[in-house]
């Protein structure tokens, strides 16, 4: 059974006075297997963010279902959603979303504190992750004292520390320079190699080329998908670029 199953997802935004309806997602279907690393690509306005918000249980679809390990997250009751999100999902955002009022360590602890874990358990979980992400030396610093790359690695640590089923990353490299981007993408690959399932939304070809599979979304539908299989990153890069070109041309012709 697939770990994540998205069936006939549809989302229509209605303006307040019932004027124009905007169809963000028309009919999205795809599955993600345990241990996969999937990138979702598409232009601005293609429905990527809407899709991610629905997967994150931050938004409800107009129709369709999202099954995480067979459980339909669309039907989770409002009061259980936060706990569900905390226990099953890890988030990495473009603008890091770290809290300035917490030290790096406390930022990473945040979801565990919210889950009511003890300090000892939190430290035990933190040690291997901090070592792996290379942020051991900055644990006591504050977000405004560290670089963008360090911030994003902190955010990754915060996502990993709950040991989630699925990591959702929204343009994780969007605010990073190329060096930090390389390091982060390498990290994602390593994490994935350890068995972590990752779903990443991006429009960076480079970021997508690190994934094992790339889904292309256009006008609210999954338009195409690419498997990396045994391709090198460069080959994958080329393929993705070609697909994007095709996608855009197709868009003009349609």
């Amino acid at each position, binding site marked *: 059974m697939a770990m994540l199953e998205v069936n006939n997802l549809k989302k229509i935004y209605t303006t307040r006075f019932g004027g124009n309806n905007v169809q963000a997602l028309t009919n999205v279907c795809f599955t993600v297997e345990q241990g996969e690393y999937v990138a979702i690509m598409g232009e601005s306005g293609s429905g990527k963010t809407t899709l991610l918000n629905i997967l*994150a249980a*931050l938004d409800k679809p107009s129709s369709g279902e999202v099954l995480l390990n067979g459980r339909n997250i669309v039907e989770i009751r409002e*009061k259980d959603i*936060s*706990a569900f*999100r*905390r*226990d099953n999902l890890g*988030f990495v*955002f473009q603008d890091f*979303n*770290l*809290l*300035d*009022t*917490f030290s790096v360590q*406390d930022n990473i*602890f*945040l*979801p565990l*504190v*919210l*889950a*009511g*874990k*003890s*300090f000892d358990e*939190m430290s035990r979980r933190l040690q291997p992750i901090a070592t792996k992400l290379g942020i051991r030396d900055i644990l006591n610093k*504050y*977000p*405004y004292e560290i670089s963008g790359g360090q911030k994003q690695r902190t955010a990754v640590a*915060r996502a990993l520390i709950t040991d989630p089923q699925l990591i959702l990353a929204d343009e994780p490299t969007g605010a990073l320079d190329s060096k930090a981007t390389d390091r982060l993408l390498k990290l994602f690959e390593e994490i994935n190699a350890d068995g972590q399932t990752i779903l990443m939304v991006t429009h960076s070809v480079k970021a997508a080329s690190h994934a094992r599979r790339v889904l292309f979304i256009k006008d609210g539908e999954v338009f195409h998908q690419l498997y990396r299989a045994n391709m090198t990153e460069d080959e994958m890069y080329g393929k993705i670029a070609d697909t994007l070109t095709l996608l855009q041309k197709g868009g003009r012709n349609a």
Partner: protein
Amino acid sequence: MHKAFYPRLAAQNCIKNGKFYFPYLLTVIFSSAAFYIVLALSQTGSLPELQRYFYLSMFMLIGTFVLGLFFIIFLIYTNSFLMKRRGKELALYNILGMGKGNIGVVLCYETLYTWLIGVGGGILLGMLLQRLITMLVTRMLRIDVKYEFFISVYGIAVTAIFFGAVLFVTLLLNLGRLRVQKPVELLRQGNVGEREPRTRWLLTILGLLSLGGGYYIAVSTHNSVQAIGVYFVAVFLVIIGTYCLFSAVSVVLLKALRKNKCFFYRTGNFIGVSGMLHRMNRNAVGLANICILSTMVLVMISATLALFLGTEDAITTRYPGDLNAEVWYWTDRPFDTDRAEQKLTEALEEQGATVIGSLSYTSTDQPAALDGSSFIIQDDVYNVNGDRILVLLTAEDYNKLSGQNVSLAKDQMLISGSDSLVGDVRFVFRGESGERVMNFTAAPTAEKFSMSSGDVYLGMVDYIILPDLDTLKEVENNCAFALGEDERTLSWFCEINTDGSDQQIAQWGQQVADPDLCGFNGDEDIQWELYRLETQAENRQDFYTMNGGFFFLGVFLGIVFLMATVLIIYYKQISEGYEDRERFRIMQQVGLEKREIRRSINVQILIVFFAPLVVAGVHVAFDFNMVRLMLVLFGLNNAALTAWCTVGSFLVFALIYALVYLLTARVYYRIVSGESRE
């Protein structure tokens, strides 16, 4: 641009910024209403030309000055808060192509609206309230003159001009700020992370020391004169201490809480403690302000309330009987006390009064210094630690006053006072020409003895019971020797109670106060230096006018300060709400439940909100001793009443405070949970 553009834009701005602007407008309305009322009351023309009616105008005049000064500071403060919140908005106008001149015109219109609506509305509200307040004032001051509603043109004019001037100053400040600000920086403002405040040990220690010093002074003061002298020192120390407490001690405390892993790593504490810690830089002063204002309100209201409720007490302390005669007589000339008492009673009965009871006694009082077991009496005794007053009585009069039955041998005496002196006690009279000594064997009185007339003394009072009148006269003579005076007089007091009404008693009093009418003149056995007779009835009115005036002013100013406190709290909550919004959004994304948001907000708000109240409560508790002592100067010596008034004021204040909390917590919650859009 179209002519109507500026006024319209200004009006839109006011409405769009309603969350900040309406409380500001309300403040202007209430402030000008309060100002108009005190002005109108101070100008009441239709009152009789009696001394006590003069008090009313005087109190209102004081009120005008205090309020005026306060409003200047407070309106400038709230305005600057308002403008800080609007920095982004104005910068946006600037970037979108409005020159600073154009924005200035809009600001002028806004100020004009504030003046028209705020001050106009305030004066109208003031007129409405004036009727009610006039009624209350006449009740409290027991003024029996009917005193009608009137419109004070003077009040309107002064209020309009005063607030016009204050608002004009705020406008100038705003324009000045506008001139120097850079729009791009303003747009980015608020995104800069606030650094964690450093631990400032020096300030922490300074704060604790000055707070401790202030408290120590307050607690260790034992007499009223001293209390007045050091009160402002103590207040000053406590104010400094309060600012340090909130800005430095709080940081130390919060950091200590953060170190406690078990406490810190729980949802509510985790978010609350770190949030507060980071905001302390800017918050500390606001919290300290709230704390100090609250303390002021509490002290003012509780003290004046105690004074007002204790008026009857103060009257009976000062005037124990319906009629109170006081006579000074010489130690070397005859004065028959029984006969004098009889004469007074007869004179009153001649006027038609029925005397129910009378009590008379002789006493003298003398400032002295205590050195070991010697009372030192000399000129300028205050310079040698003379901190006590001796009230000397004969055993006979003591028995009359206390209901005891003691008789003393020639060199015995009884003492009731602040120290328990027993055994050999000496009076040492140090005059210019030598020293005289009187030796006694002292014992304490059976029960602690005090006289209500002793309460009016400002120092420690020792009551000393001497064997007989001759000994008392000898002491008085020696005192005169020590001070180098020729006057050697004792005071004789006579308290008489009758069955008459206040009005009758006042009338009889005026008659019998004449030494010819009371039969003192022409009697060989009654030779006196001074004679006066006062009635409770005549003085009651004065006391009520005075204490009622204080109370009214206390409550009135208290309410105005309370309004200020509430507004500061409200603004603080809103601005923090907007700051916290982003944080709570992020936390929701990583799995913070709505329920948890509410809970952690509660932890944070409760601490931030009630810390000033708790500290104010502690201040007031320490201040209690001082207030009690100073009220003695106003004739109130009733610690229990003062304590109840303080506790009562605190509870009522806490209740109002809690209501404000509930209200602002809701607004805050709505902002951070994103239910209200900016």
